[in-house]
């Protein structure tokens, strides 16, 4: 029996299991660039109208950090710039999670043993998962290109954008395949994969925002943007991406041949023979389970805050003499708003979306503990369901507070050190912490779903993505203003621009509390289900 025997059967099995998620994700991803292209043309019909937007983007470190450099100020170039980074994230993260789902998750749950004992080679599962996900990425890329051409954009650029985003998806599918081989649990595989994505994102973000563009060339997310669709396509950069994907795929393939089923590459370390005296309550258990994530996120955002805070303050004053930019800032922040304040707050507003996921991850732990049967072990001791749920939710609510505080302090520090104005730190901290109620609402949504609709708990991620899409299209003026109101993040005052409105913060906190309470109440009344 060859080591790849049965890959085809497994591939069909994956297609069947994901027959809903694959078309949905593919459709959203493929339509996204086309709708941005249409919006761009509708909003800025002439090149003269587009040019100031491009100039503002090139001068704005926050825009440079999140979306990268504008290579061409035309409709195509601006479309590529708008969707390049977010599209790579949408394609990359979903691809990575899908590959991990069909490799390490299956192995952990023992499904692979069932399959592995059949006529299936040991290297078939990663090959099948990677094969299916990469094929779907290529299909999405092709559809994307066709739809873009349909809007009247040039064929070469359309092809390049589709190819670049498909390659980004395949790259992180391959990262997921390697992570699944190296780690021993699905949680750590996802953790490793997402950390690699965030690291690549930050390398490119710092490179583009600080002008040290060589840094961007150290990240495949930088390569994706540097294919430069609609701006004199550089096909060799796409070839570079393909080579990287091939390298990772070969690595995953070789790793899977060398280890035992269910084992990781690194041998497991022994733990203590007895529990520390403090491990005696559900809360202590919850902290023990979440602390790795909380510490890693806090450290990661501290580094991000320091770099981005410094970059915003250092780069700006000289570059921002265009009247359009000053105009826009004045519109949002008033006549005497400082550009650096505006851009730093803009960055905080973006990062808050990511911080929200840490709270959601912790809240959804309620569901994964329940479905794995670990909740039973605790709940058959004299621990009530409410106490058990609150132990996880306390961490889910306090964790993001710690992350935002770290972000606020370090961003304030970086900003103050570069500008020499140390008095700015408390304001930046307040600006970051202002996002806490919105983050809590997202945590509350996850908690409510886990408590009330356990089988649909993962829909919390759908809501998060939905809010992002509404927000993106809202910025382009394509969304009804009332719909925009449902996004918790849009209600947060921009403290760095002197906005002080405690009312929305109180309302959002109340909403978060109500959602959390509903989740706990739901959990109290229902059967626990695997």
């Amino acid at each position, binding site marked *: 029996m060859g080591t790849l025997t049965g890959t085809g059967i497994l591939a069909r099995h994956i297609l069947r299991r994901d027959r809903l998620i694959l078309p949905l994700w593919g459709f959203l991803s493929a339509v996204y660039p086309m709708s941005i292209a249409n919006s761009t043309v509708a909003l800025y019909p002439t090149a003269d109208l587009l040019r100031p937007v491009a100039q503002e983007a090139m001068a704005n470190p926050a825009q440079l950090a999140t979306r990268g450099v504008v290579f061409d100020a035309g409709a195509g170039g601006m479309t590529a710039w708008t969707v390049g980074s977010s599209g790579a994230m949408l394609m990359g993260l979903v691809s990575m999670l899908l590959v991990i789902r069909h490799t390490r998750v299956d192995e952990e749950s023992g499904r692979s043993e069932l399959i592995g004992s059949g006529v299936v080679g040991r290297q078939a599962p990663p090959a099948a998962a990677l094969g299916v996900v990469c094929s779907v990425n290529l299909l999405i890329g092709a559809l994307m290109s066709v739809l873009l051409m349909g809007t009247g954009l040039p064929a070469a650029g359309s092809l390049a954008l589709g190819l670049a985003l498909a390659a980004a998806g395949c790259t992180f599918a391959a990262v997921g395949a390697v992570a699944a081989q190296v780690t*021993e*649990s699905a*949680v750590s595989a996802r953790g490793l994969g997402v950390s690699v994505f965030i690291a690549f994102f930050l390398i490119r973000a710092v490179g583009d925002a600080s002008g040290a563009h060589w840094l961007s060339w150290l990240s495949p997310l930088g390569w994706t943007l540097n294919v430069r669709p609609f701006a004199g396509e550089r096909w060799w950069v796409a070839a570079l991406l393909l080579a990287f994907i091939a390298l990772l795929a070969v690595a995953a393939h070789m790793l899977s041949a060398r280890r035992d089923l269910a084992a990781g590459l690194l041998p*497991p*370390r*022994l*733990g*203590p*023979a*007895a*529990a*520390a005296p403090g*491990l*005696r*309550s*559900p809360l202590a*258990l919850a902290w*023990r*389970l979440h602390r*790795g994530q909380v510490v890693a996120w806090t450290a990661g955002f501290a580094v991000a805050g320091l770099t981005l805070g410094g970059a915003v303050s250092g780069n700006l004053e000289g570059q921002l003499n265009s009247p359009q930019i000053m105009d826009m800032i004045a519109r949002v922040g008033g006549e005497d708003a400082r550009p650096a304040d505006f851009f730093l707050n803009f960055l905080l507003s973006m990062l808050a979306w990511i911080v929200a996921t840490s709270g959601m991850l912790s809240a959804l732990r309620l569901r994964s503990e329940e479905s*794995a*049967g*670990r909740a*039973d*072990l*605790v*709940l*058959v*001791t*004299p*621990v*009530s369901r409410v106490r058990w749920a609150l132990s996880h939710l306390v961490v889910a609510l306090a964790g993001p507070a710690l992350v935002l505080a770290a972000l606020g302090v370090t961003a304030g520090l970086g900003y103050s050190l570069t500008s020499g104005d140390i008095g700015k730190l408390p304001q930046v901290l307040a600006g970051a912490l202002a996002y806490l109620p919105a983050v809590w609402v997202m945590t509350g949504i996850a908690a409510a779903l886990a408590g009330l609709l356990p089988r649909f708990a993962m829909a919390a991620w759908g809501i998060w993505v939905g809010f992002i899409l509404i927000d993106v299209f809202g910025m382009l003026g394509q969304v009804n203003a009332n719909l925009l109101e449902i996004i918790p993040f849009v209600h947060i005052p921009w403290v760095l621009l002197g906005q002080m409105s405690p009312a929305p913060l109180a309302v959002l906190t109340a909403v978060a509390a109500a959602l959390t309470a509903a989740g706990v109440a739901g959990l109290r009344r229902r*059967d*626990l289900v695997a």
Partner: protein
Amino acid sequence: MTNAISVSGLVKTFGRTRALDGLDLTVGTGEVLGFLGPNGAGKSTTIRILLGLMRADSGKASLLGGDPWADATDLHRRLAYVPGDVTLWPTLSGGEVIDLLGRLRGGIDPQRRATLLERFELDPRKKGRAYSKGNRQKVALVAAFASDVELLILDEPTSGLDPLMEAVFRDSVAEEKARGRTVLLSSHILSEVEALCDRVSIIRAGRIVETGTLAELRHLTRTSVTAELAQTPDGLNGLPGVHDLSVVGNKVTCQVEPAHLDALFGRLTALGLRNVTAAPPTLEDLFMRHYRTAQPGGQRRNQVA
């Protein structure tokens, strides 16, 4: 004798599946009850209701004198539970899990913990993800046996244990019984139940179809008899209470009802007995008798464990 567990008319449905269909069950205090049935008969559903993890649609259940749903937290102080498929936290060591669960139940006897670890040959330093299935099972067993509780609820606790450990498990249950504890042991390993249990309840399609001591259950069923005689027998046909008679040469085999044993042996002795074996029905015979026949109402077996 008061009852530690008393259940009557319990019904639980999942969608269109009727997992429990009017289940009655009692476990006396200090008794070891074997809860027998194949996968999907409703054993685990019953146990999850008794543990307050699920709520019954109708029927009454009382556990240690309380309501398993409403008084769950208080009742859990007095019981320990071992599931059939233990999942542990991947990053916690076995020792940490044992201590944590023990402390949540109000303390753990360190002496007994050490004895049990040694007896089950369990390395408490390994992380949850590094244990094999059998070792995960041992972690839960040690945590349960080391805690000071009145009632042990064990749901197929020995799945994944090797025969040596299975013997250790039997010793431990016998010890618990000697200390006056009540045990509800759900199993489909008949020898285990036969060795440990005072009484047996057999569940099928969400209902108890047979309950009693092994002696009582055996009394209801036929003994199989094999005899070699001095001469070719005749006149055995048509004896009351004798079934499945077969005669080959001088050799006779048949099944006989308990009330008619003496009549049969009287006749066999008269024919000149040379050799005889009379085997009481095994638990397996009892069990198979209930499961070999068609399902009541012709419905398919429920697929809910």
